[in-house]
């Protein structure tokens, strides 16, 4: 019924070179998804809002980074611009628009986000044009790839995985150990009480949205050298990071990490065994997880 190529899959599993290559590419997909999904899950955990326009931040991050790189020629500055620009965008978006629909219907929130998906895509089309763009690999990383157990691993991939892991650790520790982290968790639990204690919850909400936007923007900036840039690029990432957050459990950072790696591996190895049904495989996996554990793998309770 469905086109499958099990020979290719078993052949790859038997060879260490192919295994290393596919695992790395799975990690790349997973880590980029994690950065987007963790913002999504954080925003949902604290604000109880499903930010349907989160993919737009990923897209803006990539475009900001590309422009900054073309203007300055510095890769580090490009990353900074991608992350900082989307953080600002997230803050404005939350304060000006999203804050008006808190407490109203979930459908209204989704609708506002849907409106911005449409608007942001067209804004990008207006500024950067509708055609495919590419940022190009920065000179510092145009070196010979590493060979690990016969598998080819470009050094840039290692940087990408490293940055994402560092972000995960900082975020996890920051939320668990620091004062700000405690305030954020408290605001997620009981915003009325936090506000009564003299803490500006509006500022926290804006901050969390900015943080989420920044992480998605960073993901976009990191992806810019290895992916092509189009006005609709945020969308597929959004759908996949939704799957990740739902599988991992809405509101759980560890869940987002595990979910992202799982989806990355499914994409990477699935593209060998089921070339046309890779996406279907992800949805199938999501259905299975949700039916057996409706709150996701690491979700605690139904919000």
């Amino acid at each position, binding site marked *: *019924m*469905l*086109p499958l190529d099990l020979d290719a899959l078993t052949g790859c599993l038997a060879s260490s070179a192919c295994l290393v290559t596919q695992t790395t590419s799975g990690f790349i997909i997973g880590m980029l998804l994690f950065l987007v999904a963790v913002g999504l899950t954080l925003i949902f955990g604290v604000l109880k809002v*499903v930010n349907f326009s989160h993919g737009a931040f990923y897209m803006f991050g990539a475009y900001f980074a590309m422009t900054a790189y073309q203007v300055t020629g510095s890769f580090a500055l490009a990353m900074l611009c991608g992350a900082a620009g989307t953080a600002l965008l997230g803050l404005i978006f939350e304060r000006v*628009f999203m804050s*008006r*629909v808190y407490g*109203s219907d*979930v*459908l*209204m929130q*989704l*609708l*506002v986000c*849907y*409106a*911005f*998906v*449409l*608007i942001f*895509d*067209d*804004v990008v*089309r*207006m500024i950067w044009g509708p055609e495919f763009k590419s940022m190009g690999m920065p000179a510092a990383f145009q070196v010979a790839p590493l060979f690990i157990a016969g598998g080819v691993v470009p050094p840039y991939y290692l940087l990408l995985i490293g940055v994402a892991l560092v972000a995960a650790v900082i975020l996890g520790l920051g939320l668990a150990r620091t004062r700000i982290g405690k305030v954020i968790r408290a605001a997620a639990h009981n915003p009325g009480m936090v506000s009564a204690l003299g803490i500006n919850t509006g500022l926290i909400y804006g901050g969390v949205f900015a943080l989420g936007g920044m992480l998605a923007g960073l993901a976009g900036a990191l992806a810019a050298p290895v992916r092509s840039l189009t006005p609709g690029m945020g969308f597929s990432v959004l*759908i996949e990071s*939704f*799957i990740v957050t*739902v599988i991992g459990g*809405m509101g759980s950072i560890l869940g987002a990490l595990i979910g992202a790696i799982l989806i990355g591996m499914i994409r990477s190895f699935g593209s060998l065994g*089921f070339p*046309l*049904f890779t*996406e*279907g495989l992800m*949805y*199938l996996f*999501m*259905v299975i997880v*949700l*039916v057996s554990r*409706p*709150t996701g793998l690491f979700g605690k309770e*139904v*919000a």
Partner: protein
Amino acid sequence: MTELQAEQAAVVPRIESQSQRSRYRDVLIALAAFAVLAILPMLTGSKALLDFVIRCSAFGLFATSLNLLVGFTGMVSFGHGMFFGLGAYGFGLIMQRSGLPVPVAFVATLVITTLIAAVIGAICVRLKEIYFAFVTLAFQMLIHSTILSWVSLTGGDQGLRGGIPRPAFFGVDLSNHVHLYITSCALLVIGLLLMRQIAQSPFGYTLRMIRDNATRASFIGIDVWRAKLTIFVLAALFASTGGIIMALFVSGAYPEFAYWTISGEGIFINMLGGVTTFLGPMVGTVLLLILNDTVTRLTEYYGIVLGIVILFFAIGLRKGLMDFVVEWYARRRDGSGE
């Protein structure tokens, strides 16, 4: 018998006769609407207008059936479009492969939809709110991926090409534009009337109760799961009918019919028109299609214009157009009564 019980006993027949009367009124309105639509081709030779009404029928049935879930039962389905796609593909495939008469293929498509909706519904309706939305979305994308990858059956991303044969039946020739138009209008009016009956029936009020308080509903002995599954399947049938009209109209079926954006548009239509009135989604359908047609003609930046209109409704009005009109009317009437 206490005084209270006696009073209630007197009230029941009155409510029944009232519902009987409102049913006659609905049938009359439906007949009048159908008559107006049927006369339209004689008044105007505009093919574009008839096309517009056919598209309104397809999306109107789809959006109104989604409102049975969203507005009446409080089940926000993000995958309702899968049944629209299923209807289009099911009907198209049956017509292309088997050469059955149109009515038989129509019924066969609805039977297939019932089976698939029952299986998917049985898995989904147990889940709450946002999780229900996500799982329905996942099923939608699963069906979309299956359509894309099962190339030998569905034609993959090219869709069902080569046209759908439309042999005449009972003197109705669907390849004739006016016949197709009348058939679409009839399906729309009958579909709306049936959905209206569902919404006004005791079952419809059970659904409203589940929406407002599912726990209380189950305490007084309502099988919530069964009621939700029933309305999920019924809504799927009407969405599938919308898909069949669409397949007949374009004489084909495309993967976009099963893509999640169809579901997104359905939700949007509902918000645009309003979910508290029965005809709100129909008004929303007409609004969105007009908006679609004019904006795409005027500017290539369709998204920005549509986005701003959505923002106006979501942040400005905070409700759909019909909700707004009904509330405004009620306020005016109360005001003049003082």
